[in-house]
């Protein structure tokens, strides 16, 4: 499979070269032991856009996402190589501590995973407090702002001391988003964030994604093509560990260049 440079709409191309890319993924390989789950992926993500990774199960979209904040290597036996450049810094550089990287690149997981022993307030402030922030006024302000940005504030503002686990599944997921936002991330990685939620919960998260992109660069993995079409500006289609096609969401869905993409989009497999 030949390596594709990102394909962009021609009229946008001129404009885009002037803008810098927030995340540049260069020849990234993700391994589980000796098995290569993603192969030589190249992809550039524009700042303050939503990029969706789509593809059938096992295509490597989650692995690729987890390579972007070095969570992939936390899995026993897993490692990655290649370059992931965020704001001009290669996060796989030897001198880079992955812990520092993860403070700037937030992540939301498939299943809501609030800290079970903490209150709603403590869940959101956990990242701040455990990274050494002591200023209670600032913490309180950030917690409120993050909960507002996660569209959860109005529902929980009187119950901030209740445990995070007391919320519904959809609220828990928005709590996790607020928790990630509290760290003021520049990039937010979302790994199928609505897969365990009901339609109402899902649509709230989708709405949130569209709003959040004004401030944050969002990369979202989804198995739901309609969701990718609804929320994303750019879409990357992956298949069996290869990036097959990458372009603006309109182009990928309306006018895919590759036959494989067209067949997947139209539901012929996957």
């Amino acid at each position, binding site marked *: 499979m030949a390596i594709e440079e990102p394909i962009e709409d021609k009229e946008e191309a001129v404009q885009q070269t002037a803008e810098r890319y927030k995340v540049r993924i260069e020849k990234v390989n993700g391994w589980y032991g000796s098995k290569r789950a993603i192969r030589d992926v190249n992809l550039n993500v524009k700042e303050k856009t939503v990029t969706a990774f789509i593809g059938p199960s096992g295509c490597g979209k989650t692995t690729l996402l987890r390579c972007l904040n070095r*969570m992939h290597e*936390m899995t026993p036996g897993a490692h990655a190589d290649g370059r992931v450049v965020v704001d001009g810094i290669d996060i796989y550089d030897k001198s880079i501590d992955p*812990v520092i990287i993860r403070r700037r690149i937030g992540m939301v997981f498939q299943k809501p995973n609030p*800290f079970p*022993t903490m209150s709603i307030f403590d869940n959101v402030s956990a990242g701040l407090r455990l990274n050494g922030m002591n200023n209670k006024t600032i913490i309180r302000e950030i917690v409120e702002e993050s909960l507002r940005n996660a569209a959860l504030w109005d529902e929980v503002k009187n119950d901030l001391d209740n*445990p995070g686990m007391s919320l519904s599944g959809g609220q828990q997921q928005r709590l996790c988003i607020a928790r990630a936002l509290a760290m003021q991330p520049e990039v937010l990685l979302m790994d199928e964030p609505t897969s365990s939620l009901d339609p109402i919960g899902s649509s709230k998260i989708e709405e949130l994604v569209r709003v959040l992109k004004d401030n944050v660069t969002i990369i979202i993995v989804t198995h739901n093509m309609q969701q990718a079409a609804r929320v994303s500006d750019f879409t990357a289609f992956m298949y069996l560990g290869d990036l097959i096609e990458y372009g603006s969401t309109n182009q990928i869905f309306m006018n895919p260049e590759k036959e494989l993409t067209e067949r997947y989009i139209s539901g012929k497999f996957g």
Partner: protein
Amino acid sequence: MTVDSNSNSNSKPKQNYRDILQETVNKKYRKRLLLNRLVTIFTIVCVIAAVVPLVSILLEVVKNGASAISIEFLTQPPGSMGSGTGGIAPAIQGTIIVVGIASLIAAPIGVLAGIYLSEFAKKGEFVEIVRFFNDVLTGLPSIVIGIVGYTAIVLSIGSFSVLAGSVSLSIIMIPIVVRVTEETLKVVPYSLREAGHSLGISKTKVTLFVILPSAKNGILTGIVIAISRIAGETAPLIMTILGTSLFFTGITGPVDALPLRIWRLASQPYESAHAFGWGSALILILMILALSMGLRFLAQRRSLKAVK
């Protein structure tokens, strides 16, 4: 798929699996019903077999021991042998001190070692060896540990002592706490660790402030079980604290303990001493019960607060 079903229908007529299955189920039905009932009865018998000795021991201890308990019994040192006067206060005090110090030594070491095995150790021979010896240590006869305490501490400081007893008991306690901590931490979902790491929180802090609180109740239960176990130990104490009739004099001096007191009272020929022995046993059981229920109550109140 289509090719397969075609070739099947060509070779032989398709059997009606539903009828065959139904026939099999009907044939075995009575047998299964009977077996079901037998297994149920068997499990109930096992429960009774497990509970009857426990309850009868408790009843026996309460029946024989309750009459011995009085204010004097709880607050006075033993009177002269066979007089039926005095109490077991030094033994209560000694048990609290020796077991308390042993817990203070063993709980932190055990919990930290368990954290290491579960969270920080890389898979490999070293961890397997540590785990193996930890398990061996759990099964070591306590008298052997008493001999270790005797030779290592009693002989070197030249006196039976609280210190020797506490260290010996802590050696019994540590492997239990290590095992329970490791197992409890392993049950904490991996997704919580991921959530912590994704916020750029260092591994140490994730472990201490996210993972450990989630496992707190399990670890506490493990510590209580380990304390209960050492509070009833007799053999290592004979070799280390000796047992006296006097109150605590210092960490390097001998002291009494309830299991020792029970053993001594039981080996005396006097009726009054036997009654005191039963009373001491009752006190020991009540102390362990209070500790266990107190901690459970605390844990439950916390989690109730969390649910509300």
